[in-house]
């Protein structure tokens, strides 16, 4: 599903990722962890095609991101959900509109967009809040809206960057349960986190990054 070959990413003279080679299989649930600055976010952004590697190759479903056209990358992104650390919600759009946007870009029928958005908001427990605006929601609710937007298009891969970073333990549990239910539906889930608590009680594969290199992999 996701293959990285000798992947290196530099920002000026700083090396964010250094010669990484690994493979994430279809349907896996993977944590990418490491201290701040280890390269977790860069790792996710490279997989998402939001960054270009300095060297090496990334293959998503056997498609080489180095050789893909801009238009095809746009289409590929419709099959990858991304939950951003800062949520990236639009404050002047309702919860419903924030989620529906992911389907509108695909040019789906309005009826289908409505149906899928309602279903997804029900799944994340926000059916009652679909007419609310993001700024009127709690941090946990905003996080769930961001997750809903990422999964509404039923992606093959779900990438999440520190999805529980600002949440209390109860909300963290709820959000993780949500990720598990999404995973059980067949989606490959990759979560970047520096939270040790999150990893302590998990039997999922964990890739540890340190100074841009893979320093551990339980897979």
């Amino acid at each position, binding site marked *: 599903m996701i293959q990285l070959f000798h992947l290196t990413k530099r920002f000026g003279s700083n090396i964010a990722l250094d010669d990484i080679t690994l493979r994430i299989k279809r349907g896996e649930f993977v944590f990418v962890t490491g201290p701040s600055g280890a390269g977790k976010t860069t790792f996710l952004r490279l997989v*998402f095609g*939001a960054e270009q590697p300095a060297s090496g190759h990334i293959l998503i479903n056997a498609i080489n991101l180095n050789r893909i056209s*801009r*238009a095809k990358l*746009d*289409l*590929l*992104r*419709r*099959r990858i959900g*991304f939950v*951003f650390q800062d949520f*990236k919600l*639009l404050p002047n759009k309702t919860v419903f509109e924030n989620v529906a*946007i*992911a389907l*509108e*870009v*695909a*040019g*789906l*029928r*309005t009826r289908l967009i409505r149906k899928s958005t309602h279903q997804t908001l029900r799944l994340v427990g926000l059916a009652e809040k679909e007419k609310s605006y993001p700024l009127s929601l709690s941090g946990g609710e905003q996080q769930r809206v961001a997750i809903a*937007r990422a999964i509404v*298009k039923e992606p093959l891969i779900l990438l999440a960057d520190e999805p529980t970073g600002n949440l209390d333990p109860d909300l963290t549990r709820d959000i993780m349960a949500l990720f598990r239910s999404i995973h059980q539906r067949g989606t490959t889930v990759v979560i970047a986190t520096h939270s040790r608590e999150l990893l302590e009680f998990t039997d999922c594969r964990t890739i540890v990054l340190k100074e841009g290199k893979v320093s551990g992999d339980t897979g």
Partner: protein
Amino acid sequence: MRLRFYFIRQALTNMRRNLTVHIVSMGTIVAALLILGAFLLLFGNIKGWLQQWGSALTMSVYLKDNTSAYKRDKIDSFIRALPGARIRRFISKQEAMDDLKAALGDEAGFIEELAHNPLPASYEIIFDKGKTDAIEPAQIKSQIQALDGVEDVQYSREWLKRIEGFLDIIRLTGYTVGGLLCLCVVFIISNTIKLTIYSRKDEIEILKLVGATDWFVRMPFLLEGAILGILGGAVAVLMLFSGYHLLATRDVYLIGPTPLEFAFLPVGYLILLFSLSLGLGILGSFIAIGRFVDV
């Protein structure tokens, strides 16, 4: 079809969010098109009037003072023998003076003080419309001028040529001013759309992150420019038409005592103005959208 509605809805939302900027932008389109349209309207009408005037060939033959009746008879006979020529009127020195006094009205006082009448007697000749194409006025002019007793000969097309030269200069000026105005319009629309893009920067970034193609993001902005162009064009044409109605109800005298007919722009010109407005709108937004946030 679904996307078309989405794009239109999005473009209208963009316009509503930055309403003041869009109104100002539309105002500049209207102003530019009004100037251009008014120029076309006036230019078209003047050209029409001149063509109308030029199609009837008239000639004035001025006589020397104290031309004898014998010489005048000879001139008279010569004119009558010209193909298609008709003497519309013989104007004696006194009649010329009376006409001038009538034209000057209250201001004619100083003429009374003149020791002698300086105005020449003249013939007004008109040529039949059907035969004017076959007539060479310059040749006839030199033939009449050679007659004994003739001081000077002038014909209408001589003036027409001079006015046409003047019109060419006006036309060139009009096109230059029009071109500059169009550039201004493109610049203003482009900046208006840039403001919209700036205000939607976050949304564009998110659209790109969830897989929107470049055209999906661009289309509402292009439509926004097109809508500005359409609205601006429509308002300008309406205002031009209202202005025309105000003018058309009054008699306009330019040449001669007959009021001139004032015509509105032909449909072709209206379509041209409208297309220009639409084109400028789209071009302005096209320049603005250039490259989008690279995500």
